[in-house]
């Protein structure tokens, strides 16, 4: 086909309404939260003493970190899905959650006796954490990969990795309501590992399914 003919055909298709990329993210995010919540409540559910825990800063701060991760990663994901939009500066947003966590670790180390540090980091729930954050997050990851397919990421593997971080942030937010290990040392160790697993899965999924 001659290029001029192709342009004629493309122009004739221009009247078709365009769905903004932000609409796909919104749909994916809403569905992801619903799917993650269903899996969470059907499996582990919130901890029994959640009302009492809600009054403690260490418990609440877990949500600051996980929500910061989900939000910042979604922002970066949007940039990665738009050709030419991801500059180095936008990738820097991914440091938001780690920076918050690092600050909290600083406070933790100042306020907790050194003899406790190792116990706080190891915690009691590491296996549950490494199991259920990926289990809760895998559905959301699939949804964000689907939404990413509507986008145009020029680095599909990187975009998939970040989609895994978004899913990990959502899953970790729910998981944090279950877990009784509230130390930032525990969060930095096990949540990070669990989110990295989702990130790795997302990276592979991005390379396999998000070519365009």
């Amino acid at each position, binding site marked *: 086909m*001659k290029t001029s003919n192709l342009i004629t055909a493309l122009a004739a298709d221009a009247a078709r309404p365009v769905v903004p990329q932000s609409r796909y993210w919104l749909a994916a995010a809403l569905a992801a939260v619903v799917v993650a919540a269903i899996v969470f409540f059907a499996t582990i559910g919130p901890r029994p003493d959640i009302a009492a825990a809600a009054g403690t800063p260490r418990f609440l701060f877990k949500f600051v970190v996980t929500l910061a991760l989900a939000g910042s990663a979604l922002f970066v994901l949007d940039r990665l*899905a738009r050709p030419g939009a991801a500059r180095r500066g936008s990738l820097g947003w991914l440091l938001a959650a780690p920076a918050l966590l690092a600050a909290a670790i600083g406070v933790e180390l100042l306020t907790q006796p050194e003899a406790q540090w190792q116990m706080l980091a190891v915690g009691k729930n590491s296996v549950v954490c490494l199991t259920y954050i990926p289990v809760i997050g895998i559905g959301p990851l699939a949804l964000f990969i689907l939404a990413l397919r509507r986008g145009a990421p020029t680095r599909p593997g990187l975009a998939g990795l970040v989609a895994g971080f978004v899913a990990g942030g959502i899953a970790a937010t729910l998981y944090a309501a279950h877990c009784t290990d509230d130390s930032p040392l525990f969060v930095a160790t096990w949540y990070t590992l669990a989110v990295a697993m989702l990130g790795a899965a997302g990276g592979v999924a991005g390379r396999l399914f998000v070519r365009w």
Partner: protein
Amino acid sequence: MSADHETRLAGLLRAALDGDETAYAEFLGLVAALVRPVARRKLGAGIGTDPEDIVQETLLAIHLKRHTWRSDAPVMPWVYAIARYKIIDVYRRRGGRVELDIEDFAETLPAQASEAASERDIGRALDGLAAGQRRVVAAISVEGRSISETAQALGMKETAVRVALHRGLAAIAARFGRSET
């Protein structure tokens, strides 16, 4: 060229996203003129891919992904990133690598190169389509009919013509990606 070009292209694409077909055709023509010299230079020797295929693949990608442009963002980096992705993709499918910087685009003079005069085989792009889609895409692209003329000629509803056109174009884009593996 940059600042003027940027303003002009962005204006045309904004109008196109509001449904202005004439503006869209002009926008795509300008994009083709921008991408063509880069594709020729990069695919010059022995890769076995017609540079015009890259131009067409880029236009199809721009069309199908036009919702990924934010109307308050510059349009040229968006166009270049898509073209770059498509050129690199051709090399990747052939197991090679290509270095391609944004400067490759900046050097180009959009007006100088025109489409190769050789009549390209219409069958190549349309062959893979289902019969109904092929008739619609051919009527509009090759015969230059409007949507309503095509609907009349083929005895279809206009909405059915629009759907067949859109699906046909998406199928051509998908086929481009597979054809050289």
